[in-house]
């Protein structure tokens, strides 16, 4: 069964303390892995798409990487404004539009 699991569930960091979030997936024929950021009271906001193992994408303090079984979202020297829930998602099946979402990692960066 296609599945997406994120860890940790919650993470508290001091400002400047780098860390990584994990997204493990089991899906046949990966057609992309998506990272989103969700702020309280808002909808998820698209960050990155990764398509193949070894691929990396960067945006400001965030860097996403992909292997054949998991993706990491590395946060370097985070700031309080990076506090949010980070979600990953993969499309399921072929020729469909069903995206399976993980339950997210709630990140809190303390000043």
């Amino acid at each position, binding site marked *: 069964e296609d599945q997406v699991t994120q860890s940790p569930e919650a993470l508290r960091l001091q400002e400047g303390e780098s860390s990584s979030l994990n997204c493990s997936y089991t899906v046949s024929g990966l057609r992309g892995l998506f990272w989103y950021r969700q702020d309280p009271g808002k*909808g*998820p906001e698209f960050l990155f*798409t990764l398509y193949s193992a070894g691929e990396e994408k960067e945006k400001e303090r965030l860097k996403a990487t992909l292997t054949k079984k998991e993706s990491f979202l590395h946060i370097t020297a985070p700031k309080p404004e990076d506090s949010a829930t980070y979600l990953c*998602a993969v499309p399921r099946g*072929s020729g469909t539009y*069903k995206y399976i*979402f993980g339950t997210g990692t709630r990140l809190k960066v303390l000043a």
Partner: protein
Amino acid sequence: DTAVSQTPKYLVTQMGNDKSIKCEQNLGHDTMYWYKQDSKKFLKIMFSYNNKELIINETVPNRFSPKSPDKAHLNLHINSLELGDSAVYFCASSYSSGGNSPLHFGNGTRLTVT
């Protein structure tokens, strides 16, 4: 310019009532979705329309009926609301690239059924 907009943002109603949520996107996408996010923040797809055609209909009670008058609009009507329907409902849109196009979400409608 709001890309995906939903109304209302908040909806408080009593059990048994009927309510509707509206969604509009100005991104030129041809596929629109309804997702439900529960209290644990888990996002689960409910419906998807591609060019006004229903293409995904997950195991959702018949009380939920989506309608897409055109590819820029998607509405959700809920009959006989139940306590368990309380959640945040998100509208999203994308291009129809077979699952490779990222979703763009609205800011959600928080439905509370009392």
